[in-house]
């Protein structure tokens, strides 16, 4: 028995939760999980549901793969990972269809595409395969939270500027519309998501000099 057991919330473990929020953010730094981040951020509600679904899939897959890490032969590990992820996503998809059917229709194919969300595979390969279950669980939650934060920021701006609402509630008063203000239709369209993320990267790197790429 180990005499020295690392406390559940030691500073090293807390780092697993906080680093992906900024320094190693999956979307803006690791360049993973871009596809779904751009597509489901037209409004806040679907973005939130997506972030939550990814968090559930990531946390559980990380733990399962971490528990299996000593028994899976390296040659078939990708297939094993895909099967674990796919099984979790099927579960999440059925739950979403049962409890929030209209949002599940809005998300359409992107729930299935959680399977190919590079963050999940990426973290399984980079972390869960060589770390213990509790750390893997925290890493999963941390990265999913970092992903979720970016999703919510992009969705907030796109919904506010594109439809004048936040979470479905009208925020911009009628008087501003009468003045001549119009909802920015471009925000609802896909390309703006790319530009918003580009701006987020700009702001993040301006504040955090060590992330600047030198080429």
């Amino acid at each position, binding site marked *: 028995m180990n005499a020295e057991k690392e406390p559940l919330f030691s500073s090293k473990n807390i780092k697993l939760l906080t680093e992906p929020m900024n320094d190693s953010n999956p979307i*803006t730094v690791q*360049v*993973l*999980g*871009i*596809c*779904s981040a*751009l*597509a489901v951020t037209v409004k806040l509600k679907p973005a939130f549901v997506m972030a939550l679904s990814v968090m559930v899939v990531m946390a559980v897959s990380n733990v399962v793969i971490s528990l299996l890490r000593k028994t899976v032969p390296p040659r078939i590990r*990708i*297939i094993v990972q*895909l*099967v674990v992820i*796919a*099984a979790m*996503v*099927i579960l999440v*998809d*059925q739950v979403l269809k049962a409890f929030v059917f209209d949002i599940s229709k809005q998300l*359409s*194919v992107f729930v*299935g*595409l959680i*399977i*190919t*969300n*590079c963050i999940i*595979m990426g973290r399984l390969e980079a972390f869960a395969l060589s770390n213990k279950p509790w750390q893997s669980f925290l890493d999963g939650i941390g990265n999913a939270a970092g992903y979720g934060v970016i999703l919510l920021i992009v969705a907030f701006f796109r919904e506010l500027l594109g439809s004048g609402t936040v979470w479905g509630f009208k925020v911009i008063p009628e008087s501003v519309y009468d003045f001549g203000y119009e909802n920015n239709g*471009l925000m609802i*369209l*896909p*390309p*703006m*998501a*790319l*530009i918003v*993320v*580009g*701006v987020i*990267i*700009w*702001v*993040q*790197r*301006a504040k955090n000099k060590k992330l*600047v*790429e*030198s*080429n």
Partner: protein
Amino acid sequence: MENLVNIFVKSVFIDNMIFAYFLGMCSYLAVSKTVKTSTGLGIAVIFVLGFTVPVDYLIENYLLKEGALVWLSESFIDVDLSFLSFIIFIAIIASMVQLVEMIIEKFSPTLYSSLGIFLPLIAVNCAILGGSLFMQERAYNNIAEATAFGLGSGVGWFLAIVGIAAIREKIRYSNVPDPLKGLGITFIITGLMGIAFMGFMGIKL
């Protein structure tokens, strides 16, 4: 025939996998540093999409969707196996990618080594799974339509990645502000390209 060309052109320009749906962004951003690797990866994606979408179409219509199993026995009319789609599609894609990998290794070892890890990563390229899922959602009428869609999506993805690679190669010598260098400016350029491609939306074929 006209319908097929319609679907093909639509999936190359109007329903472009990258600019309209953002599928395949990760490898798009990572491999687009040079035109050479982008062309190689793009062609591999065309192959994989061109094969997996028709194959998945057959599986969807003869195995998975509600009432698909009637050819086995009349009593199966209520059976709906579509919840298995994710796992089966992914299995087909993984095996196709393995096949493409073996073919490329045999016929062009230089391309194989320059693509490196990104060749097996096509298996988790959202564009490939997305292609099959869109095919499932849109319920094409026959396998020719599904193939036209698959090939069109691949060609659209290929166009996008080669385009951004060419631009990135040129932009290395421009005065991009430091925090935007590399990833940031690529996002913004892709957004602008997306807006440009939207110009195709009004075209009636």
